[in-house]
């Protein structure tokens, strides 16, 4: 009796394996290129996002940007007259959840936004790549998108080529600055960005001192600041998370640092935590980013006002416009390439979107127009700001030249 039960059990398991082997690659939709008469009732754009866990707040801002774009598009009549809907899917910080959710989308989704946090990008995008699904993943760093070219798009230009000019511009604003030290937190692409900063500094003829590593679970910052100050720097660059940057600046000031304009904060630290933690002590600190909050266009003003209304008067988070733009980019791709949403033509239509977006020309972004080349934005400007009373005041706009 026992034997028979075990035998059944083994059979079940064996059959699982047999299926498992057959099913690794999803059979793609048929490749016939007949003109379809299929009519979609709703464009559904899934958004793998991080809505819970330690960076849930950021995820909410991203989602807000995408929802805003969808709302605007629907107000204006939708995509080809069909409404669009952004469906948020929570992966938290968990790569495992990310893989399963991405695998669910691999079969039917036309295009996917996200995933957002780096661990999930690493785990889930390979699935999209294998399934031939284009993902609007790499909103932050070029490095991740480059690994998955042509199936992922970057919102940033190549770090080592495009980032240095803005740092050089900052250095040139302070001609008496000779020695600069950099605080670097070892996380994700940040060490790479720190390297780009160094290139920019060297170009400006500034000596780069030994960098100070910021532990990702640092609680107090005195030792790090003393280590930096002991090298007698006259300028400091920060490549660490927002809260830590704010605390480092406070600590520097308590040890006699006076000239805030010689402090430069990198773009990834430009989020709410920087301002809530730093408060008025940040006045005069320089920061660079891809978004100019005081841009004088109707579209941006409305976006900004709506964001503030929904977030207790907080300034838009710098990444929110990215997913706003992503939805519009998808809209344009669908309209321009005549995508039908027909499940039978899924494979080519996915490729159509991919090829269109990777080399989109003159895209009307929320803040400025740009063109893509091989999935990478060209001529995207960087802005250097001075922080004043929790607001960024534009100091200089830097447009990295094309090679």
């Amino acid at each position, binding site marked *: 009796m026992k034997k028979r039960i075990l035998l059944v059990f083994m059979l079940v398991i064996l059959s699982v394996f047999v299926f498992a082997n057959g099913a690794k690659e999803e059979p793609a939709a048929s490749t016939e290129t007949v003109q379809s008469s299929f009519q979609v009732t709703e464009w559904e754009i899934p958004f793998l996002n991080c809505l819970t866990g330690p960076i849930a707040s950021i995820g909410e801002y991203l989602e807000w940007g995408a929802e805003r774009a969808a709302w605007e598009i629907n107000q204006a009549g939708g995509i080809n007259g069909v409404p669009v809907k952004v469906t948020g899917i929570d992966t938290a910080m968990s790569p495992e959840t990310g893989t399963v959710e991405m695998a669910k989308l691999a079969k039917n989704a036309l295009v996917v936004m996200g995933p957002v946090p780096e661990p999930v990008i690493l785990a889930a995008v390979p699935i999209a790549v294998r399934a031939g699904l284009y993902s609007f993943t790499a909103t932050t760093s070029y490095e991740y998108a480059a690994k998955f070219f042509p199936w992922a798009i970057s919102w940033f230009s190549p770090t080592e080529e495009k980032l240095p000019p803005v740092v050089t511009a900052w250095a040139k604003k302070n001609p008496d600055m000779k020695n600069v030290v950099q605080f670097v937190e070892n996380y994700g692409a940040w060490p790479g960005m720190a390297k780009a900063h160094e290139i920019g500094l060297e170009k400006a003829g500034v000596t780069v001192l030994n960098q100070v590593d910021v532990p990702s679970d640092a609680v107090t910052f*005195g030792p790090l600041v003393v280590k930096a100050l002991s090298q007698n720097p006259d300028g400091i660059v920060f490549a660490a998370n927002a809260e830590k940057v704010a605390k480092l600046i406070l600590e520097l000031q308590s040890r006699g640092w006076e000239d805030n304009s010689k402090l430069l904060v990198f773009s990834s630290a430009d989020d709410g935590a920087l301002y809530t933690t730093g408060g008025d002590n940040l006045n005069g600190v320089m920061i660079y980013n891809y978004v100019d909050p005081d841009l004088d266009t109707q579209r941006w003003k409305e976006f900004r006002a709506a964001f503030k209304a929904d977030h207790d008067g907080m300034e838009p988070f710098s990444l929110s416009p990215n997913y706003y733009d992503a939805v519009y980019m998808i809209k344009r791709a669908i309209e321009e390439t005549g995508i039908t949403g027909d499940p039978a033509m899924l494979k080519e239509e996915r490729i159509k979107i991919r090829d269109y977006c990777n080399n989109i020309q003159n895209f009307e972004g929320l803040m400025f127009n740009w063109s893509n080349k091989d999935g990478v934005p060209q001529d995207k400007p960087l802005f250097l700001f001075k922080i004043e009373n929790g607001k960024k005041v534009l100091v200089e706009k830097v447009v990295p030249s094309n090679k």
Partner: protein
Amino acid sequence: MEIFIAQIINGISLGSIYVLLVTGFNLLLLVAMIIHFSFPIVVVLSMYVSWIVLGLTGNNIFLGVIAGIVSAILINIITAPMFQHIMKKRGDVDINSTMVLSMGIGMIITDFLSHSVNSGFPIAFPDNLTGRNLGAFFQIGMISISRGDMISLSMGIVFVLGLFWILYKTRAGRAFRAIAEDPAGAKLVGIPILKTGLQSYAMTGVLGGVSAVSIAILLGSASPGLGDQLGHKVLAVSIIAGLGNLKGGLIIGILLGILEALVQGYWSGTWSNSIAFVVMLLAILIKPKGIFGIKL
């Protein structure tokens, strides 16, 4: 030399946070036989409560501090009986289970904070609490002690000393220690177990609340992950010093702070955790019962 002195002072400032937390941890262990792995997370929760009340009352420091302390007491009184339920048999296995229970509580609090308060962003305490606007108390070059540091340090010292006084010099403290050593025996000398137990939870709660306020002043801000960052080290400090050894916790806590400051200052920040843990690992392999001996 200036740098070295500055780093030592930095280390003491970090160490004082460990000391506050480790004292609370050890106290829970002493008066209730609880291994509260997540005690630092509970302290962070109290910091959040304090922050919320500060926001609601227009930065009324008095109410903020009171809220922090009261919330810590409440959390303790609610959670301690759960631990004691598990510790009924007082076996080694039960102590392991209290660690797991504590981890569960930590999971809930951390996730709740990152979900719900201030959209998960770090919270910053107002300047009139942290004393940041008061400027430095003492500063020569890189050696700097802010007024806020001084306030929180002296508050911490006063409370830890007060705690020692309560524990070793008062009637209630005697009763707490008696219950901790031998609950059955304590019953025989006429100590009302339930009432005294509640008092002892309340006392550890007060310490938790004071720690919350002190850390708020020292750090000026808090984030949902703060408790986790501190938790492992606090556990390690307590184990290295000898579980439940209050004086040992004081010394090892400060030493760990100094060690970390020196590693960060003279070598590498990214390695500071690993180095600290390796040193502690060596200590525990040489002296499995802790350097100062287990006191339960």
